[in-house]
């Protein structure tokens, strides 16, 4: 597990993206700098109760999150956070997850 979620920041205009792009949607630059976003706000939540082809599936929660840098990403939630909750982000492999930020 690594803290934050890796994003790709355009060296031309400074806007960060997730997932990775080849050309920047804003300025069409092609040079990127790696960066990380550490937190975001939950916008919507879904509980995945069934998975095609899997009989012993345990429900999982996923969420739309607006990161503190503006990216709109989908994360796995590791707690009961709902819309409006500020969460801290982390990665497992290439997948983004989040849980409520300790107050």
């Amino acid at each position, binding site marked *: 597990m690594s803290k934050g979620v890796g994003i790709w920041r355009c060296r031309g205009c400074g806007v960060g993206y*997730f*997932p990775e792009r080849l050309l920047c*949607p804003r300025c069409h630059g092609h040079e990127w700098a790696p960066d990380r976003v550490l937190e975001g706000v939950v*916008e*919507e*939540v*879904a*509980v*995945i*109760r*069934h*998975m*095609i*082809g*899997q009989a012993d*599936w345990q429900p*999982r929660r*996923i*969420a*739309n999150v607006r990161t503190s840098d503006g990216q*709109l*990403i*989908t*994360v*796995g939630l590791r707690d009961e956070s709902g819309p409006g909750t500020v969460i801290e982000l982390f990665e*497992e*492999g*290439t*997948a*983004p*997850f989040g849980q409520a930020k300790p107050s």
Partner: protein
Amino acid sequence: MNAAIIGVGQSAYTRRPEPGQTVHTFIRDAVVAALEDAEVAPTDVDGMAVASFSLAPDTAVDLAWRLSLSLKWLLQDTNGGSSAMNMLGHAIRGVETGAASVILVVGGDATGLAGYGKVAANFNIATREHLAPLGHGGPNGVYALVTSRQMKQYGLEKSDYGHIAVAQRAWAAKNPFAVYRTPMTMDEYLAAPLVADPLSRYDCVPVVAGAQAIVIAHPDRVPKGRAPVRMRAHRASFNYDNQAGDGLQTGISTFATQLWQAAGVRPDDIDVASLYDDYPTMVLAQANDLGLAPGNDLQRFARVTVGEQRFPLNTWGGMLSAGQPGGSAGGLNGISEAVLQLQHRAGERQVKDARLAVTSGYGMTMYRYGGTAAAAVLERAA
């Protein structure tokens, strides 16, 4: 006008294919049915377009070989739910320009549920790396989130989506090919188990094995006594917003005005609509983008236009009741139904005096929602 849709055909649809039934056999059955319907000999076919998630490792030319078709025009489309609409546009233009004289457009899939699960988890690199490891549930999870956004933005309730599912089931009861034909009540819709909150069982398109085909040729080739179906206008969109929006507008929003202008008709002239219905949410989004919901009033469209007035929407039952044989063939369902309606051959489902239809496709869930869309206005030719 020198190109028209002159015939349609489909295979049986089944939730669970029997041993020996493959995507190839379903496609063969649809092709045979479409050619018989169009009264076209296989030797007259000189063009083919195909879309399928489960044809691999075969490609379009392998399918031509298996079908014993020697061609001078060939296309394989990879745009999922809008593949059918794309292929329709290319095929019409192919005949109009003389690149081919008879083009077969076919789509089908037979992934099985396990195979579909693999497709859903490996839809593209973004899905494989950033969504599937979350246990996102494939498109069900993605459109659960889109549905929540739509409910918030438009003040919709769960039952509003139920009007789409219930109305389409009533149409499906009149379609012998539909996999689910038993009429459904709103109470049954609301009592169905949740799949991915807020989506429940009847919000999620049932995956089936099957195939669909249509035939494009000069209108003079239409079987005697039938009207050819012409395409008044066609537009498409790909990656319309770089996934930077909320997914509540589709790519149709980028071309709807042009589509209606090119067609020379208005949304309220339409007699029957086939809108791509992988989820009721996206039916409402496409109806909105096409201008079928005046004032962007999706609640009224669901409750009154569909729920009470039973505007002829997805009159074969839609994929939600008839089944989704892969996105590509699913899109061909809507086109085929529009053709049957415009040719006044829809039997118990026939919309009286149908003359104009709008059909749409939507698909390729790139990350947070679909990135491809296309639509056409079809007309019963005199």
